[in-house]
């Protein structure tokens, strides 16, 4: 029966960074993404009784976040007035030409794919980080993602450098194993 239970008290530790990555990729703004994550948690809490346990907690929260992202775009669109539909040949000229042929994406370009894949990679890494023990994930993301210097981290957490490197070592070893399973 316990499978239907949500654990909101662990949400921030387990999913905040994962949801945050997902949101930043979609709204390209750190501040807005942060607010969306916060709203997602609140909304999740409010509708917790509707959680049927058919999906994992994280999947369920991502579904809520998706709606929040859509709502965000609706909101900024209504601020601007009605959505504009441009029917010009291209945005900056009225030149004539073969519409379709010239507007299709370059089939040789794999850049767009790369971005998508990198985003998935980012989420896979976040998912692995969230499986680490709290202290290790904290040290690892401070060091690797936020790029804080060794000295500052030691000061903030009250540990010595050799402690830090041992934790980094454990975190990295665990991540290698986790990514080995989930990415390659």
């Amino acid at each position, binding site marked *: 029966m316990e499978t239907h239970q949500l654990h*909101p*008290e662990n*949400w*921030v*530790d387990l999913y*905040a*960074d994962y949801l*945050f*990555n997902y949101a*930043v*990729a979609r709204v390209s703004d*750190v501040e807005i*993404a*942060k607010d969306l*994550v*916060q709203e997602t*948690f*609140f909304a999740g*809490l409010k509708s917790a009784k509707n959680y049927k346990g058919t999906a994992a907690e994280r999947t369920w929260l991502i579904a809520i976040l998706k709606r929040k992202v859509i709502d965000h775009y609706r909101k900024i669109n209504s601020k601007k007035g009605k959505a504009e539909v441009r029917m010009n040949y291209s945005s900056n000229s009225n030149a004539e030409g073969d519409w379709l042929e010239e507007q299709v994406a370059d089939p040789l370009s794999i850049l767009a794919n790369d971005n998508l894949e*990198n*985003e998935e*990679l*980012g989420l896979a*890494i*976040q998912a692995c980080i969230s499986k680490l023990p709290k202290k290790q994930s*904290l040290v690892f*993301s*401070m*060091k*690797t*993602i*936020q790029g804080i210097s*060794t000295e500052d981290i030691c000061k903030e957490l009250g540990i010595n450098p*050799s402690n830090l*490197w*041992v934790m*980094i*070592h454990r975190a*990295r070893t665990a*991540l*290698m194993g986790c*990514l080995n399973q989930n*990415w390659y």
Partner: protein
Amino acid sequence: MISCDDAAIICNKKQYKEATFLEKIKLFLHRVYCDTCSKFSKKNAKLTALCDKAPLYSLPEKEKVRMKIELQDKI
């Protein structure tokens, strides 16, 4: 001569460009005869490359604490 544990630590430091020149030489020499550390170094470098490639963001700890408190209030 250094132990594998030392080698691993130096290898990790190297991922953050914090290994000294002397340490790098020690690691290099160790890798010549130690297969395990050789493999570990390669995998470790790969992990660094993956982390660089992916757009990773994380919320600062302060923000998380604030979120937790606000969430706790509503539970």
